[in-house]
């Protein structure tokens, strides 16, 4: 009886080994394909240390850092989504329920609003605006919003429902404030904000990779130690506490890690929030009954889907590329609907 159910279940599980080679092929494709017309031979030349100056610039200073930024951001969004869905016990949770993307948006908006005066630049010239500061400003805004929501929810005992409601309310206010500010503007600042809001990997460089990397490394180093916490945070607090689990402390730790990962990624790419919503569901679907594979799969799929989405956006849009945030929302919505149909 037992043997039979186990065998039946395993035959239903999807093959996982296939994802790794697919991921590698995808990354290779992302390096070889792009708007700038470089033949595969030219790309190979660059990768083996030869090639023209121009080709080398395109590959090592534009394409590869862009792909690397996408991979890191994809991991951040996906893992943050999984952690938030776990601790709020809400299958529709993503970084936006902790107000992270809204906080980051407001911070970026305020920053650009005042930047004109601080940096004494002409607001009609986009590239004179201090865009290099946006990741740090976005990170700060996202973390600040997360902290406010956490503190509000803590006064009411940190229930998952409370934190979700606080997050939605605070997020809505922050978003409205940002929109209000933008509506009052003219000028090129709007273009930057809109580009940022759509979630983009355009012109992301090695600096962005270096900005993200410490968060990725710190997050990935602690994750293995959180496996048991993540299991126990899926229970209601009285049950977890009765098992002897220090619920509040661990809830706080996991929440902080999720906020750090999501806010740093939002700072660099803008809100590509759909990834955080959809990848954990996809990972659970593929993992089937092998629950311990959900976390590694979430990581892998986060990287793969952002890379794939960005490649599609680059190729489909031609010179006017489609931002990854838009691609992931358009492509992700049907996938999400299909996956959610499995939930009762």
């Amino acid at each position: 009886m037992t043997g039979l159910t186990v065998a039946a279940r395993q035959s239903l599980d999807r093959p996982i080994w296939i994802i790794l080679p697919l991921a590698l092929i995808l990354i290779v494709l992302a390096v070889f394909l792009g708007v700038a017309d470089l033949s595969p031979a030219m790309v190979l030349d660059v990768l083996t240390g030869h090639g023209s100056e121009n080709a080398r610039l395109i590959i090592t200073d534009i394409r590869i850092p862009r792909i690397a930024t996408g991979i890191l951001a994809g991991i951040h969004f996906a893992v943050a989504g999984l952690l938030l869905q776990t601790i709020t016990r809400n299958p529709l949770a993503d970084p936006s329920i902790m107000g992270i993307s809204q906080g980051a948006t407001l911070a970026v908006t305020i920053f650009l609003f005042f930047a004109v005066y601080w940096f004494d630049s002409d607001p009609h010239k986009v590239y004179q605006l201090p865009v290099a500061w946006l990741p740090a400003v976005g990170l700060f805004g996202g973390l600040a919003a997360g902290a406010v929501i956490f503190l509000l929810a803590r006064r009411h005992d940190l229930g998952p429902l409370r934190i979700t409601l606080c997050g939605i309310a605070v997020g809505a206010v922050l978003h409205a404030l940002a929109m209000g500010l933008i509506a009052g503007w003219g000028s090129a600042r709007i273009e930057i904000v809109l580009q940022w809001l759509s979630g983009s990997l355009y012109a992301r460089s090695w600096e962005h990779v270096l900005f993200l990397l410490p968060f990725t490394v710190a997050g990935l180093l602690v994750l293995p130690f959180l496996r048991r916490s993540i299991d126990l945070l899926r229970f209601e607090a009285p049950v977890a506490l009765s098992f002897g689990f220090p619920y509040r402390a661990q809830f706080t730790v996991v929440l902080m890690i999720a906020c750090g990962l999501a806010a740093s990624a939002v700072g660099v790419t803008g809100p590509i929030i759909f990834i955080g919503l959809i990848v954990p569901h996809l990972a659970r679907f593929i993992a089937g009954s092998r629950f311990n594979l959900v976390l590694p799969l979430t990581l892998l799929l986060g990287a793969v889907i952002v890379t794939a989405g960005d490649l599609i956006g680059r190729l489909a849009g031609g010179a006017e590329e489609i931002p990854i945030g838009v691609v992931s929302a358009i492509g992700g919505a049907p996938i999400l609907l299909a996956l959610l149909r499995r939930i009762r």
Partner: protein
Amino acid sequence: MPLSCSGLSVAYGPRLALNAFDLTLGKGEIRVLIGPNGSGKSTALHALAGLIAPSGGEVSVGGRAVASFSRRDLAKRLSFLPQQPAAPDEMTVEQLVRQGRFAHVGLFRSYSARDVEAVRWALDSTGLTGLAERNLRELSGGERQRAWISAALAQEAEILLLDEPTSFLDIGHQVEVLDLICRLSRERRVTIVMAIHDLNQAMSVCDRISLLDKGERVFDGVPADLAASGLIERIFNVRGRFVTIADTRAPHFDVELARH
């Protein structure tokens, strides 16, 4: 004295849900809490488990204040199963029961042979060995309840608090759970407090019984004295009488229905 409380009061806002509740248990004792819906049984169990801070009084476990324990140390000695806990989706019976070992393994230590054996014993005691690989979602209400009881057993605590462990079980599984509880008390000397609705089951399984009404403890003693007190008819607002079945057994309450 494994578990006791004195003057225990719990308030939700301005309302007292439990007023000056006293309880003293000996090792291996089975204590049953009965009372109408909303009389404070769950509240008393939560307070005994250290899950709500009382507005007055104190709970002590092994002579030490419950508030002075870390959650993990407390869980090694006291295990609590809430009324109708919600199961996370995508979790097998065995995975649930393994969570019961948290107090022993903590956040990082891996499961030892001792832990694996405790999980096996807990599954076996609740007749779930054959269902170990099943997803909790695919179980009947009764099977799921047994899985939760199994998780509480895996904790191997010397005190077990159970909130309505037999509700939603068919009569066969109800008796199975009650037998298991008796065995734990007699063979392992586990001290047990449970809330239960079936009066006759309550009377026959317990050593002593406490009757709650609107947060007040209106009776505390052996089942025969409760039968003699006439309180059941008054508190539950029913008519009936206690009949003796056998000298060695608790009297049986026979309800009188209005249609007779």
